[in-house]
């Protein structure tokens, strides 16, 4: 297992000018790590749809890498997205799953059938161009350069610990998402 915070630090070193759509727990931690927040889209407005937004961005901006940080609980809300992504086959999209097998924010309830199926196997059968299932931080460190250099769509499942927290997640105030999108638009217009 690798800590998601440490995994995100590794990813950040390879991020370059990729757009990052960051959902759930990884999204909250990414805000403390990202060195290019203008190209970040923290995703809280509709659970499960981070990868769909990432697909739209990847198709709109084929010259720009797009990375999605998804949770396993989020992905199972929108599993069809895997087929939609593969059907459109954007080579610039990398879909990371932080698999902790629980709904962390809501108190640690299990994701349905958690631990008894493989997201990587689902991704392989769906037809992602490249699929990785990584258990240890060193595996991610050794693989990130390859992940970022090859054409996708790429699926990366990161095994992270099941950490339960009781502190309620405080959502940003309404309207902030629009400001983030304005900032992202400006960053895409003026690289």
């Amino acid at each position, binding site marked *: 297992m690798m800590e998601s915070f440490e995994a995100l630090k590794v990813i950040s070193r390879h991020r370059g000018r990729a757009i990052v759509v960051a959902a759930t727990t990884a999204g909250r931690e990414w805000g403390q790590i990202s060195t290019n927040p203008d190209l970040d889209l923290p995703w809280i407005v*509709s659970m499960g*749809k981070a990868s*769909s937004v990432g697909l739209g961005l990847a198709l709109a901006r084929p010259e720009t890498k797009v990375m999605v940080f998804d949770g396993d609980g989020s992905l199972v809300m929108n599993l069809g997205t895997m087929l939609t992504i593969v059907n459109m086959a954007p080579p610039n999209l990398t879909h990371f799953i932080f698999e902790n097998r629980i709904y962390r924010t809501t108190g640690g309830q299990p994701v349905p059938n958690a631990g008894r199926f493989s997201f990587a196997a689902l991704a392989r059968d769906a037809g992602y161009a490249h699929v990785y299932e990584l258990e240890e931080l060193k595996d991610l460190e050794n693989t990130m350069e390859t992940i970022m250099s090859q054409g996708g769509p790429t699926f990366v499942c990161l095994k992270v610990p099941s950490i339960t927290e009781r502190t309620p997640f405080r959502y940003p105030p309404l309207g902030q998402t629009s400001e983030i999108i304005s900032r992202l638009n400006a960053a895409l217009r003026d690289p």
Partner: protein
Amino acid sequence: MTANGAQLTDARILDEIKKCGFTHVIWLPDAGSNLLYEGLGREPGITMIQVCREGEAIAIAAGLTWGGKNPLVLHQNTGFFESGDSIRGIAMGTKLPLLIILGYRGWKWGAPMTDTAGIFMEPILKAWGIQYYLVESDDEVEKISLGYKEAHETSKPVVILVGREYRP
């Protein structure tokens, strides 16, 4: 021809959609719209994105819009109900200018409806404050351009309810 003589042809509605300059059509098939999907798929300037469930469509449209493209969402009104959280959080919450064309399942051309897909449709759009237009004939397809313009002027989703099956 339909009961009251009105007609909605796929060529006419396709022409109107093309006027709006859409770059992508995000769609999920419904039985009444097949001719339109086929026609749009033949348009060289339009990329078709087929989704597995309608809520995906709104999120993909958002990503495309924020990336500088001009998407249209096209599915049946039953899918509007399914995509409620995406419409709430993404389309309305982020002030997304988006035209959504829905096949109006249940619509009885003004007569009492028996299908809840039709009965609930307009009351829900009104409750959510979403502007909508009903298109039932070739004479009314200009509402598509009107709705598109309004979506962009107001930065809100606008819905077109298509009340008849398209004819060749």
